[in-house]
């Protein structure tokens, strides 16, 4: 479904992505994990077509991004990208925004309005639905952003830190379950980023560990556990992604040993 081939990117002098290659089969839920500033959002931006890599290419459903206007348009019809800080039109109500996104993706009106109502109920936004988004809290804005991604019914969802942005526990639970069921029942491909290992085990069918712009690991959660020889995925990811963190914690409480 998604093929990333030898992608390199840098904004200035330091490379952000270095020779990134991976393949995401249809219906998989890939969680991109890595420390801050290691290129997770850049990678998602490249997949979303928000920025063109310096080298390499991205193929989605057999078509190459930016190869021709037709290919690019076809890809855009299949992909929904939710950035970590989406900008919502301040003069629209949440309901209006969802309907507008649904219309962009040609969702039939009857199903669209029904889906909007169900999403607003799912994320507990009925009270706010008919107010302009300028009055929403951060968490509510995030929920509307996620709802917009789900209303699109796009076969590929690219979600940048969907569990962040002030989402409350009920919202996290709802999103986790929705993503799981979508992948299971509707064969939707999801690529998401998260800095929190504990969430990965519950939603990911594959984990991509990004370190210093390179793909350090790309495997199923089970394979990562076996590879690390740990009991849980969380421990395996701690070893893989943040190997120095436990040591640094110990060192923090023993100031005399700090070099």
């Amino acid at each position: 479904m998604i093929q990333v081939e030898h992608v390199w990117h840098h904004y200035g002098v330091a490379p952000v992505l270095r020779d990134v290659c991976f393949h995401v089969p249809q219906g998989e839920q890939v969680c991109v994990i890595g420390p801050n500033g290691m290129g997770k959002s850049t990678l998602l931006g490249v997949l979303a077509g928000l920025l063109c890599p310096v080298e390499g290419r991205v193929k989605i459903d057999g078509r190459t991004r930016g190869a021709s206007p037709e290919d690019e348009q076809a890809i855009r019809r299949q992909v929904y990208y939710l950035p970590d800080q989406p900008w919502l039109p301040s003069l629209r109500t949440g309901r209006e925004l969802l309907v507008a996104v649904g219309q962009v993706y040609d969702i039939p009106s009857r199903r669209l309005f029904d889906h909007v109502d169900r999403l607003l109920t799912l994320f507990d936004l009925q009270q706010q639905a008919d107010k302009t988004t300028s009055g929403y809290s951060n968490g509510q804005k995030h929920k509307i952003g996620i709802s917009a991604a789900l209303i699109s019914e796009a076969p590929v969802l690219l979600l940048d830190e969907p569990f962040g942005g002030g989402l409350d526990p009920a919202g996290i639970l709802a999103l986790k379950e929705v993503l799981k069921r979508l992948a299971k029942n509707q064969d939707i491909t999801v690529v998401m980023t998260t800095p929190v290992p504990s969430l990965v085990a519950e939603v990911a069918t594959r984990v991509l560990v990004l370190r210093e712009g390179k793909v350090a690991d790309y495997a199923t959660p089970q394979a990562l556990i076996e590879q690390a020889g740990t009991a849980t995925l969380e421990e395996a990811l701690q070893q893989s992604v943040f190997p120095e963190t436990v040591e640094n914690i110990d060192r923090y409480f023993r100031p005399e040993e700090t070099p």
Partner: protein
Amino acid sequence: MKRFWTWLRVINPAEYAVGVAGLVFLTAAMIYAVTMGVFWAMGYPLHSDSPSITPSYWLQTSRLLTAFVSFCAAIYGALRATHSHPMHNPDYYRWLSSTPWKYPLPLPLGPVTLCWQDAVCMAVFALLVAPAGGFFWLAPVVFALVVYIIITLRMLIHGGPYWLGYAGLFGLAASASVGWRVGMIESGRVFEQLTSYSGEASPRTGDELLLAVLLLTFVALTVVATQVGLKLQLRRFPWSAKVVEIFERQTTANTRANNTRANNTRTTNTQPRQFHREFAAVGWPMSVLNPKADARPVYSALERIVICSLAAFTVFLILNGIVAMLRMMPDEMFANMERRRSSAGLFDMLSLYFVGFPCIGLLVVRLIKHMAPFASPINPWGRLRTGRWFIAGYDRVFITPLLMLATMLLGFVATRHVLAFVIALQPVSASLTLLAVALLYAFGPPDLETWRLTGRHRLRSDLVYLRKRGDVREHFWN
């Protein structure tokens, strides 16, 4: 009297319009009366033909009145063109489409073409400013007509018959050009009187009649083009979906602008029309990545060629008028300067205004449209340090602006030096330069749609945060 009002009400543009116009006029009249009263109390004569009364307060205040009335007349012209035209009112259009109305039945909200009632209104406007004397009575008539014609031509260009719309625009440009020349000649005459110029009689005396006839012909042809165009347009009612779409988009944009003044909570209108063609309003980055976003030109290739030609033709008329006027002027008018040098200097300045600045403006607009939302994938410092000085996929955006710049400079060199001694050809050369630059702007690669979809760029997000409530992205893509 009642029958007269009933007859006149056919063109009443809106219930409130007469009231507003009356209020504006009463305010103007009150200012006028008070001013007159003050002057009278101070002992100034209220009316005199003698030039010794300086300044002529009577003249100045009556010209103020003329400005007010002309303003009202312009509004009248705008309302006459828009109020009863179904293209300007989607609800009216939909309702009318559901009725058996066909041209030439009268339109329920009144005629869109000019009629005798308009002549009565124009006469009233003219009478109101008659005290100003001279040809000032023409001012409100001209304002009303020009506004009416411009709006109607715009409707014809969007909704057809296109050829009449463009023909009308050419007519309007020609009328403006000739009218401007008449104005210049009149100004020249005043100038001569003021400076007591006593040279030989200028050859312009013979041209005035010709110019006046030309002006009237162009104006009449333009008005005829609008009237015939409107009738042909109504004959094609109901119009194609594309035509209706363009005007509905504008109406919904207006609705959205009005909504900004509404309070924070409002009832959601989920009628499809409200969202029609408003796909851009889905927040960032969806507004840019939106599969239905469309940056293709609004006008077809042929229309773009006609618009560019029209601009160049207008500039040609203006410059040609100036050249003709310079040739008509007697040498004594140039005082101590060499005639050729001062003429060339003036022409250079005018071609800078009419050709140079528009060319630079087009160049800047093109760069902004192609580069403001799409940045280089690597910042300039990164490009320098990593040796990627040239990124073909991105730098192709500079090809057309560079060609535009080269064409402009080449055109100026040709006009200024090569054709310096063939003054009659200079307006042709200058307007051809503008035409070439405008065509490059309109057709130069890459077009915005291809660039948006296939350019090797990075979509900027910083614009979004420039204004918290600006909805910058929405408007940029609309």
